[in-house]
């Protein structure tokens, strides 16, 4: 069963088309990553799923229900971690969880139980009675994730949950997301960290300029676009390599060569050439598909 089924969804702001016909599915129990440079339309897509932004065209089903007909019961099964920190500034850490739980109409005892376990899960117990504006960025993010889980949702949407956090905080969040996956939750995630996506996501949808460029498992994407190994060769590139039919990409000062068998490139590289060789990863796929130019 698909938790999300998007077909040709589009979103325009005035004349500007932010999402230009996107198709993707989020099967139950999987983690799908929506990757793309800034301005690709990721947040807009997530907002459409949450019913926070109307569709300009296309069909979007959430739990098999058209998004504009989602019932209260279905809405309760979705948790949202928005890109921006929108905690309630007038409430304490604990109140941010408990009061949020009350918007779902949940039993008080259930909410308190949830709040206790989520404060522990996100390691916020010590800060329970602090005001939220006194929290560090990492704590705010963790609290927002905890808040999204207050009604024990089946499906969690996370819009850049770790952007701007230090490595310790990121690892903590990864661990908790992996735990959620183990519990059978379905996740839809955006991130700028390719290692994060590679670690967490079963399936990845790469978007840019409001369109899907490709999708697949991290492995599939890597083997489809960047083979197993990547060589970065400084210019001037030796002629033998230039004349070869090896898959490559010019990125300005150097050229990237993608091969499954590293020997294929190595024997074309005379001594004294500056190059680096590594196992290719999702970052290479991302840069290959979305280009190396700076965005926004």
């Amino acid at each position, binding site marked *: 069963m698909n938790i999300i089924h998007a077909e040709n969804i589009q979103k325009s*702001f005035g004349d500007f088309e932010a999402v230009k016909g996107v198709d993707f599915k989020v099967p139950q129990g999987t983690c799908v990553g929506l990757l793309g440079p800034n301005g690709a339309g990721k947040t807009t897509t997530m907002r459409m799923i*949450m*019913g*926070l*932004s*109307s569709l300009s065209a296309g069909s979007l089903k959430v739990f098999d229900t058209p998004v504009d007909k989602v019932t*209260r019961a279905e*809405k*309760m099964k*979705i948790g*949202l971690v*928005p890109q*921006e920190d*929108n*905690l*309630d*500034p*007038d*409430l304490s850490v604990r*109140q941010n969880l408990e*009061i*949020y739980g*009350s*918007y*779902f*109409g949940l039993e008080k005892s259930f909410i308190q139980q949830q709040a206790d376990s989520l404060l522990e899960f996100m390691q916020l117990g010590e800060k329970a009675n602090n005001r939220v504006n006194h929290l560090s960025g990492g704590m705010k993010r963790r609290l927002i994730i905890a*808040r999204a889980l207050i*009604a024990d949702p089946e499906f969690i949407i996370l819009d850049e949950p770790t952007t701007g956090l230090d490595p310790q905080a990121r690892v903590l969040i990864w661990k908790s997301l992996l735990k959620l996956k183990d519990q059978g939750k379905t996740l839809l995630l955006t991130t700028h960290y390719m290692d994060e996506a590679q670690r967490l996501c079963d399936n990845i949808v790469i978007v840019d300029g409001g369109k899907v460029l490709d999708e697949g498992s991290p492995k599939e994407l890597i083997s489809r676009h960047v083979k197993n190994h990547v060589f970065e060769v400084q210019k001037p590139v030796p002629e033998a390599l230039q004349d070869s039919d090896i898959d490559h990409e010019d990125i300005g000062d150097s050229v990237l060569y993608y091969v499954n068998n590293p020997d294929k490139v190595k024997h074309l590289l005379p001594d004294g050439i500056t190059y680096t060789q590594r196992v290719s990863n999702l970052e290479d796929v991302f840069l290959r598909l979305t280009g190396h130019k700076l965005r926004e």
Partner: protein
Amino acid sequence: MFFSIPNIAALMNRYYIEYRQLIGAFFFGDVLERVMFFIAFGMGLGRAVAQIDGVDYITFLAPGIAAGSGVFIMAVATTYGVSNRYEGSAIWQSWLATPVRLQDILLSELIFNMLRATPSLVILYIVAYFFDAVPSVSGAILSLPVLMFANLVYGSITLNMGVYLGRMLYFRYIQALWVMPMYLFSGVFFDIKEAPEWMQVFANIFPLYHVLEVVRPLVLGRPVDLAQALISFTVLSVIFVVAFCLAYNQFKKRLFD
């Protein structure tokens, strides 16, 4: 458009928590200014104006200040307050990711601010009572529900301006073009029947004028023209429904489009 009582109850609880923390600020903001107006004009100007509409000036003024106080409170709450919540801290957006819906939020904003403005009305009447300016205590008590409803109406109107506050509209415009004209030309400070004819006609466009037509006789202990009161109530109800629906549609466009 249906409202969800559990959603509204949950939001009211949230507002109440905020209110308890800021009670001092709310109290001073809402009460002190109004009381000062009442005392300064009532005692100061009251000396010069011997009698107005058959009573002491300060007695005439009390229901006027009471009826007008909500105009300010509701205008600030539905513009600054609201734009803080959906643009500043963006907590409306966090609420909209739950079963809470836009109509629940808008109605809760109005009800909460109407409720929080109510103690200041009571205090104003108590102060006026000590100045011997409340001829009919039962009338003053009866006027409270009228004023509470009036505050909802004022709020529903200014909610429409809250959509634009910060983007293309400044509070000064709202104050200069709506709040102050209504406050000054509805008969808070003077008997509108004694005013120039154009002003009497002009006053009709302001809800405050219609509210005062009911509230002032009540507090002065005079018979209220029931037919007139019914018309006023109907007009105010229509204004409320229309303004609320307009605000809902504007916010829907602003937030979801």
